[in-house]
C-alpha cells in the first residue's frame, strides 16, 4: 500500500505505514524534508525535492508524478497531507 506523507501529518502517516509490511512511503511537498526511519520502500516526489534543493539520502528514490500515478493504480493509496 502507498502512503503519501506530507508535513505536518508525518506522525500518523508513518505510524500507519509501519504497520504494513508492504508499505511504500511517498514523501510529498514539505514531506521531502523528512528522512523516515521505516522498513520498506521510500520515494520522494522529484519535483518537490528539486525545487527545495533537497539532496536525497541513497535509500530514498525520486519519483515523478507520472510514476506516482502508475503506482497509485497498482495498489491502494492513503493520503496524509
Amino acid at each position, binding site marked *: 500500500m502507498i502512503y*503519501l506523507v506530507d508535513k505536518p501529518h508525518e506522525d500518523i502517516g508513518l505510524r500507519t505505514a509501519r504497520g504494513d509490511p508492504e508499505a511504500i512511503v511517498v514523501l*510529498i*511537498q*514539505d514531506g521531502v524534508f523528512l528522512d523516515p526511519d521505516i522498513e520498506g520502500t521510500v520515494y520522494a516526489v522529484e*519535483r518537490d525535492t528539486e525545487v527545495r534543493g533537497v539532496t536525497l539520502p541513497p535509500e530514498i528514490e525520486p519519483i*515523478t*508524478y*507520472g510514476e*506516482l*500515478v*502508475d503506482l*497509485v*493504480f497498482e495498489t*491502494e*493509496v492513503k*493520503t496524509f*497531507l
Partner: protein
Amino acid sequence: MSHLGIVLTGSPFDSERWRTAYEIGRSALERGHEVSIFAYLDGVYVPMTDQHFEEAAADGLYQKMPTKLYQELLDSGAEMFVCGLCTDARSVDTESQIPDEITVGLLPDLADIIGEADRVISL
C-alpha cells in the same frame, strides 16, 4: 483506463495542495485515465477565473496562475465540482467566477466520486 478522484481543500496561496492536485491530475490525464476533482472548503478558490499576479511570475510557482492550470485540466477532459455551500460561504460568484465546465455540486457528488473512482487522493 482507470479513474482517479481528487479531493482538494487548500486555497491557492496558503498551501501547495492545489499545485500537487494539478500535477497529479495532469499526469493521470496524460496517461489516459479519467480524473474527477471535488473542490471543498478553501479549495473552491483555486479554479476561480481572472487571477492576475504579475509580481509573482518570475520562473516560479505562479508563473501560470491556478486559473490557467485548472483551465488546462478542464480542457484536457478533467471533470470538476466545486461545493456550492462552500462557494456561497466564501462569496464566490459561481456564474462569473467559476469556469462553465465546472459543476456546482454538493456532497452527494463527492460520495459518487468516491464510489466510482478506482482511487481517491485527498489533498
